């Protein structure tokens, strides 16, 4: 063999160009995950600005307009920069390995979809430094408030388009990989549950993204081209924007939670040493949740005003979501029932997910009751609800997945002791952070305010302490990941005794190219 052959490996390319031009799904997956970690800390820093301001009543650190920019940016960064890219990173790493494919179906598109993201975020975050500041009207960007944004407005819209294109291309790639690159013998109902949840997620994403793209473009034309889609003065309707935003926004919530369901459904059986209970019902429950997500959007708008029949329809449709979600929780519990359970860090995060996500689910049920929602709407109760779903739900699932697959990615087992410390600190502080917000909301504290009445002082102080504790605990996660990346490649191919699936058939760390010869699935 000549030198040319020996040097043909893609790893030969060094430095930035290697990462900039890579089409390898594992490298792109790693970039997505590292990007998501970076954005998690950026969005987390914004959250700490919010919590520092709310530590005591009165204005302490920032002016109200900057506070509003922080709440808006925190949401946009966490949703589009941290949670969604983390799931896409996990999909990039794991889906080809789980379906026995050598790579993603469209590797160049994969590269573009990643690299559009830093570009989009550079635009979005740069608005904070523009005259007039960044967007401050909330991540929902309701007109006419959003139209009062200064110079930043067109840049925000452009950034959303860029990030949307990135998400769509990522989803198309995942769909094409799942449909066209499965190993021989892997029928749809033999696919790992994580792959299933991602197929449904990608479908949802492709179905609703044009609605967001259209909505923000209409905002742009209303502002600069004289249209009046959302202006009552010209015959338009501002409430219509809210309808189309939430037509996108509610499925978006499921886009952020369905892959989490897939992760938990993968990890619980591994550490219970039992197959997943009710695989088929899990698949149908996932599809049912996706279907229902299209017909519940107006539960975000009960107080905006709609006919009684509309209130009733959206109330009952929302309550229906509890049925497939209940199926999932039941199946997770049944999977663990009489299993030979062990409690390593991924399992601990998964168990915390089951408990804490269920709390978020129950508060969601409370919010779905239209007459009760009139009391809870726009209070901290809503903030508590969606943070239980997104932090102890989506983020905990991502952390569980990171611990579960980290040895497969890096070849080095993380420190179990540090992992457990990270788990307990995170779980304690996240509850200190968000549980009191239920009390604040029920007592009537409105959301999106930088100052509040003194009656809310105690719980706010406790919540802020929880926020800083949770934030500091995540630095430990950073250290654990860094140590694992710098480690000594001591992990076995099958890291976890109870783990099943094609990804555990390849060595750890997974080589650059896997399954050049497709495995046979029987």
């Amino acid at each position, binding site marked *: *063999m*000549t*030198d*040319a*052959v020996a*040097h*043909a*490996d*893609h790893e*030969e*390319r060094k430095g930035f160009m290697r990462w900039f*031009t890579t*089409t390898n799904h594992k490298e792109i997956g790693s970039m997505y995950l590292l990007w998501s970690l970076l954005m998690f800390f950026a969005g987390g820093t914004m959250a700490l600005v919010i919590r520092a301001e709310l530590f005591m009543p009165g204005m302490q650190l920032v002016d109200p307009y900057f506070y509003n920019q922080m709440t808006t940016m925190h949401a946009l960064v966490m949703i589009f920069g941290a949670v969604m890219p983390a799931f896409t990173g996990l999909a990039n790493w794991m889906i080809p390995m789980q379906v026995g*494919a*050598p*790579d993603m*179906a*469209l*590797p*160049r*598109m994969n*590269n573009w979809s990643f690299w559009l993201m830093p570009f989009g975020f550079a635009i979005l975050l740069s608005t904070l430094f523009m005259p007039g500041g960044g967007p401050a009207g909330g991540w929902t960007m309701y007109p006419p408030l959003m139209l009062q944004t200064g110079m930043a407005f067109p840049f925000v819209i452009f950034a959303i388009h860029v990030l949307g294109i990135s998400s*769509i291309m990522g989803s*198309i*790639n995942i*769909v*094409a*990989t799942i*449909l*066209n*690159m*499965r*190993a*021989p013998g892997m029928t*749809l109902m033999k696919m790992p549950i994580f792959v299933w949840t991602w197929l449904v997620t990608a*479908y949802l994403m*492709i*179905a*609703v*993204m*044009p*609605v967001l*793209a*259209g*909505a923000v*473009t*209409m905002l742009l*034309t209303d502002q600069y081209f004289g249209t009046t*889609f959302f202006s009552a003065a010209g015959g*338009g309707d501002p409430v*219509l924007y809210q309808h*189309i935003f939430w*037509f996108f926004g509610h499925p978006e919530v499921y886009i952020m939670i369905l892959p989490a369901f897939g992760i938990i459904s993968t990890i619980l059986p591994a550490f219970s040493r039992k197959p997943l209970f009710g695989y088929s019902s899990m698949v149908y429950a996932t599809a049912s949740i996706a279907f229902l997500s*299209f017909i519940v959007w107006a539960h975000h708008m009960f107080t905006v005003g709609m006919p009684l029949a509309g209130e009733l329809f959206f109330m009952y449709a929302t309550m229906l979501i509890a049925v497939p979600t209940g199926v999932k929780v039941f199946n997770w519990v049944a999977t663990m029932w009489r299993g030979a359970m062990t409690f390593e860090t991924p399992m601990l995060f998964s168990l915390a997910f089951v408990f804490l996500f269920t709390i978020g689910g129950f508060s969601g049920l409370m919010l779905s009751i239209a007459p009760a929602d009139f009391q809870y709407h726009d209070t901290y109760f809503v903030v508590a609800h969606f943070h239980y779903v997104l932090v102890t739900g989506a983020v905990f699932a991502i952390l569980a997945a990171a611990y579960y697959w980290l040895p497969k990615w890096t070849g080095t087992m993380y420190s179990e002791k540090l992992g457990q410390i990270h788990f307990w600190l995170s779980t304690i502080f996240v509850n200190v952070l968000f549980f009191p917000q239920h009390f604040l909301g029920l007592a009537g504290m409105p959301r999106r305010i930088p100052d509040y009445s003194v009656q809310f002082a105690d719980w706010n102080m406790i919540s802020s302490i929880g926020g800083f504790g949770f934030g500091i605990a995540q630095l430990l996660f950073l250290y654990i990941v860094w140590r694992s990346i710098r480690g000594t490649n001591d992990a076995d191919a099958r890291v976890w005794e109870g783990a099943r699936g094609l990804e555990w058939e390849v060595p750890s760390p997974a080589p*650059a*190219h896997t*399954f*050049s*010869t*497709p495995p046979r699935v029987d």
Partner: protein
Amino acid sequence: MNKTYVISPSFQSDWRLSIRFLALLGIVLFSISLYFFQLGLWLIVPFAGAEFLLVAASLWYSAEKSFEKNVLHIDRTTVTLEKGRKTKSSSISFEKIWCEVILENVPRRWKHTRLFLRCKSDKVEFAEFLDADEQKSLARELKQTIGPVGV
């Protein structure tokens, strides 16, 4: 000594499943956009249409890739390379004695290696759909039957 290599991508597509997926997506996507269109929100329609076309093109392209096939017939005097998808679309023959397999490193392109069959001044690329590792092992194997792997 006669030898035949059938080289195809290491995955298989399910085009019927892709069609079903596209139909399900199309129904939902166009129902949504037409509903909003009749409310006056017509700007959703071009985005939905463009996205549907992108999904369809991507699924078609990835499915097509799986049908790619290169066949190398090697006998005592001749090397014949046939290329095609579902049917043979091109064929070229070389004198074996002048033939060599070349694996080129291409650091500034998307693809990291390219595999060629060269005979005198003619040079034909083949097995483009394989990844770098697969091309490397194929080159190594062909070296035994055709000739040296050069730069």
